[in-house]
């Protein structure tokens, strides 16, 4: 019994290490000196810990700050738009009858089964004609659009869970339709809203396919694409490690803060496939 316990925990430990190593290793490397990074003898802990890599990013790597800014603008605006649009449309699909409502929901869910690869070519041509290639706006719009079907579906589910009586009593109290949505329904559906915010945050922050096609100029790139182009351009692995660590701080903060919601969100998300 004791032995099997030991085997069990060592196995779990090895698995955990496999998942942690890439992140921890780049964290440790970001504190190493340049000679140490390129030496044949690799040590796990930095021998002479230094902040040189981080200094490089902030002093000479003004480009990095620009990429971080692009990622932030695209993500923040994208998440806000996605949340507003899906909590209005989700409410309509759950509670406000209009012509062709059910058919439209099915249609929207059908559309997302198509891979982005199909949409990419016309979106590229359209962005070229609208002259929004290489702009933050040019990435915000398709990101929001491709998130909406699924986030509307989540919000529709969240609103459907709210008992009809609550809505009816708001109506009797004289709330207009808009006010019922804003003051009564929206606060109760906050679980759905949190899931939408977290989900869209991760998707946009890490989004690669739209970014690599629609932002080909370095100045317009978000981090997810920009960092992949840095191999061997004066950005040694220490600097690259530092850049990656800084770039995953925002998602990791969200991960730690909302771990509980994340798990339930993923289980709900499984429906999407």
């Amino acid at each position, binding site marked *: 019994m004791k032995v099997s316990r030991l085997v*069990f925990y060592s196995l779990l430990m090895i*698995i*955990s290490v*496999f*998942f*942690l190593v*890439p*992140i921890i*290793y780049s964290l440790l490397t970001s504190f190493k000196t340049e000679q140490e990074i*390129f030496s044949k*003898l*690799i040590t796990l802990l930095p021998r002479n810990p230094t902040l040189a890599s981080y200094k490089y990013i902030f002093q000479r790597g003004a480009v990095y700050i620009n990429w971080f800014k692009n990622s932030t603008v695209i993500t923040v605006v994208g998440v806000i738009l996605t949340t507003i*649009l899906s909590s*209005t*449309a989700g409410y*309509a*699909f759950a509670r406000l*009858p209009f012509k062709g409502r059910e058919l*439209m929901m099915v249609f929207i869910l059908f*559309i*997302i*089964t*198509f*891979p982005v*690869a*199909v*949409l*990419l*070519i*016309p979106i590229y*041509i359209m962005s070229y004609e609208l002259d929004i290639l290489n702009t933050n706006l040019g990435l915000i719009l398709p990101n929001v*659009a491709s998130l*909406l*079907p699924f986030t509307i579906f989540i919000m529709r589910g969240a609103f459907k869970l709210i008992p009809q009586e609550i809505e009816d009593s708001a109506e009797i109290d004289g709330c*207009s*339709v*808009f006010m019922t*949505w804003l003051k009564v329904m929206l606060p109760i559906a906050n679980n759905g809203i949190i899931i939408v915010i977290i989900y869209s945050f*991760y998707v946009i922050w*890490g989004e*690669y396919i739209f970014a*690599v*096609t629609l932002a080909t100029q370095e100045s317009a790139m978000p*981090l*997810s*694409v920009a*960092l*992949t182009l840095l191999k061997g351009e004066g950005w040694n*692995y220490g600097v*690259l490690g530092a850049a*990656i660590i800084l*770039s995953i701080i925002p*998602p*990791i903060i969200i991960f730690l803060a909302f771990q509980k919601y*994340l*798990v339930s969100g*993923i*289980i709900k998300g*499984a429906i999407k*496939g």
Partner: protein
Amino acid sequence: MKNNIFTSREKSKRIWGVLFVVPSFAFIFLFMVYPLVHSFYLSFTKYNFVFDRTPTFIGFRGYIDIFKDPEFILSIKNTFVFGVVFLVLAMIISLSIALMLYFNTRFAWFFRSSIFMPIVVPISFACILFGWMANENFGLLNYIIRDVLNQPQWTRGWLTEPNTAMAMIIGVTLWGSIGFLTILFLGGLQGISTDILEAAIVDGANGWKRIIFIILPNLRETYVITGIWGILKALKVFVQPKVLTEGGPGNATLSMYMHIYNNAFVYFDMGKAATMAFVLSAIILLFSILNLRLNSEK
């Protein structure tokens, strides 16, 4: 009178319904419906974005021609190999981890956090990290093999040999998706009713027997969800070969998705790329329909 108020409320609901849906639908129409239709049209044309001013309609010829493109056939084969190996490993590993986490109570916070952590790391960053660890000269992988395990003959350029490059692509995909699949399996495990488990204990089923005869057969729904998710993920594999190997060495890790991307945005052959994208879509659609049917059966 009352009736009148009621109908005006209904009317107001209808108006707000439309107002609430129109902005979202404008987005979806502009960036999904219209592109889909446009792309469908392009798939029947010959259209090089750089050389041709307008698309030339060629009907179904494009759909026949792409199957004469050896790179496309190779990309289908690569995607298939990737998908099968990835799916088998992903299912076995994530189910095992889920079982371990399900029975484990000590340090659960640490194990869960470290296994779920990769979910939040953008896949392109994971590829950078893996590419670096696989580096022939100062990568961690060769270092461990050479200096820790003391097996210098096993060191190699992991990304410059066809089979190991594919293995790295599978490895990074596993790293990025096992946390997610483990959560799904945990959800499935928690869904097994305690009555069944208790009945099994009364019948004298011990640890392993309980897992094999009670738990595993009761996860059928979860196998379907995770399996289809894995298949769809494999069919759309793109970032990993793009960042880690550029499809190489040779075309050993060229996936369907990446071949479509290359045709569209490297060779600007939009017509051909659209055709291939619809062939891929057809395959994806097939599995999505299967998913819907299996989901509605339960």
